[in-house]
């Protein structure tokens, strides 16, 4: 399967199963589009007719290009057939190894954001803080279930984790104290709204946190519309100086500024560029996750505007890179030469199997977005996973379990998509969130176009 598209002045061909990416001229583009459905003579006739006014396109040229396409096909870099369907049910997908936990250290929040999927941190339940004993046991549970994995990830999440900061620090210190003995390395991360960031948080995080995710939505009027405190006051003015100091102190590494855009700000690149103007260089901006009936939900009419926004972002990022003002956008980071292996690409995020969320009470859920949905309770950190039926369902949930993905060119970039988004959109984790698919495909097209542009620039 291949995917062909034109973007940013480039003709791009993606060979889905080999992962190959080709940048081609107009002639080769037309030849590749016709290659599987027309004879060589038909292609020669059509292409020479189309380009008859161009001196560089004659029969010999076209046949030479067809020979190149044939060669790429023989080398399995074009029109590659699917060699992976059989391994999707293989042994590498049957492990019970757990390597990442999202610790819900605070089911409470000092902001009252109306669009919060976690219902202001409470996850439709009671307010609660995780005790150190629960956090300590969670790390032990992770180590015990991590098999031969060395790198273990622990994200401090909420609600607002800084509302339980002392326990966060104790959990980190406990983790560090057992790393050597257990032969493990913890990568701690922190996701925060910034309200309680102070020098102690910054100093400790810079020493211990592999990554820090700072929640900002962008322009003041956009940010303050949703991200208010309980008195109804916007939080922008309070968090921006703290986050600027935090980001600067991290040496511009190991952080993301992460925003959410909604129907109210489909012009979200203005928010990203605003964040860049504030000095943030590592950016992530996510489409809101909510019910389609919510006023902030993205609509069908928003889609063309969002596609345009992603193109604006890609072009601006290329321009800024040339000017020495490089920005990183999470979804445009794509490592073509040393990216994920096929197992990762088929299996996806690992929610419910190698990645789980832990509530303040030590209950396990497949990921943070399932917390509070009792149907998806997996067990707890003392007794382990007891709900094998749910774990098995997540284990089998991969790109080959979704029929809608069979003919999708982007499937080995997205792994079938987010199980939680699919569940919320269709009622089934093996469904697909089609709106999200369309945005995802546009982002990948842009990300790959940027790689092509960088290669082309490098050649000149």
């Amino acid at each position, binding site marked *: 399967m291949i995917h062909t598209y034109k973007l940013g002045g480039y003709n791009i061909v993606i060979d889905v199963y080999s992962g190959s990416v080709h940048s081609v001229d107009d002639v080769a583009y037309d030849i590749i589009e016709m290659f599987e459905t027309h004879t060589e003579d038909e292609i020669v006739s059509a292409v020479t007719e189309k380009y008859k006014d161009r001196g560089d396109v004659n029969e010999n040229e076209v046949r030479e290009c067809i020979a*190149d396409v044939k060669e790429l096909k023989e080398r399995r870099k074009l029109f590659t057939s699917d060699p992976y369907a059989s*391994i999707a049910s293989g042994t590498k997908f049957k492990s019970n190894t757990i390597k990442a936990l999202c610790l819900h250290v605070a089911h409470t929040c000092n902001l009252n954001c109306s669009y919060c999927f976690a219902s202001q941190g409470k996850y439709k339940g009671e307010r609660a803080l995780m005790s150190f004993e629960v956090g300590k046991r969670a790390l032990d549970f992770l180590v015990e279930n991590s098999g031969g994995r060395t*790198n273990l990830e622990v994200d401090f999440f909420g609600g607002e984790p800084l509302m339980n900061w002392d326990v966060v620090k104790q959990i980190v210190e406990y983790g560090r104290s057992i790393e050597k003995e257990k032969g493990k390395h913890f990568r701690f991360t922190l996701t925060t709204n910034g309200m309680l960031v102070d020098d102690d948080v910054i100093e400790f995080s810079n020493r211990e946190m592999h990554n820090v*995710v700072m929640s900002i939505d962008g322009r003041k009027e956009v940010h303050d519309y949703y991200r208010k405190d309980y008195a109804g006051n916007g939080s922008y003015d309070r968090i921006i100086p703290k986050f600027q100091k935090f980001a600067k102190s991290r040496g511009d590494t190991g952080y993301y500024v992460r925003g959410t855009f909604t129907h109210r700000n489909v012009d979200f690149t203005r928010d990203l560029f605003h964040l860049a103007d504030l000095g943030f260089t590592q950016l992530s901006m996510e489409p809101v996750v909510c019910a389609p009936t919510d006023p902030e939900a993205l609509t069908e009419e928003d889609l063309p505007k969002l596609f345009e926004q992603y193109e604006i972002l890609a072009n601006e990022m290329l321009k800024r890179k040339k000017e020495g003002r490089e920005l990183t956008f999470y979804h445009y980071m794509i*490592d073509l*030469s040393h*990216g994920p*292996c*096929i197992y990762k690409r088929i299996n996806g995020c690992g929610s419910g199997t190698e990645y789980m969320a832990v509530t303040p009470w030590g209950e396990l859920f497949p990921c943070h977005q399932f917390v509070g949905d009792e149907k998806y309770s997996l067990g707890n950190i003392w007794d382990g996973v007891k709900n094998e039926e749910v774990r098995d369902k997540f284990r089998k949930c991969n790109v080959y379990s979704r029929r809608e993905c069979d003919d999708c060119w982007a499937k080995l970039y997205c792994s079938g998509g987010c199980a939680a988004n699919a569940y919320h959109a269709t009622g089934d984790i093996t469904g697909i969130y089609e709106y999200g698919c369309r945005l995802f495909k546009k982002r990948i097209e842009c990300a790959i176009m940027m790689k092509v542009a960088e290669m082309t620039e490098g*050649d000149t």
Partner: protein
Amino acid sequence: MKRIQTLDTRDLEKSVKNGGCGECQTSCQSACKTSCGVANQPCENKKNEKESK
């Protein structure tokens, strides 16, 4: 090739042999928290270096 430039990409078919070590980052864990793209995850398997040559 005159009309086709091929980018340097990891050969996914070759990764069948050496892949699956699981040391890489969980996809959405520390950044977006709302999507499942894996394309931006760097491989942490040292065998990948050999495989791509």
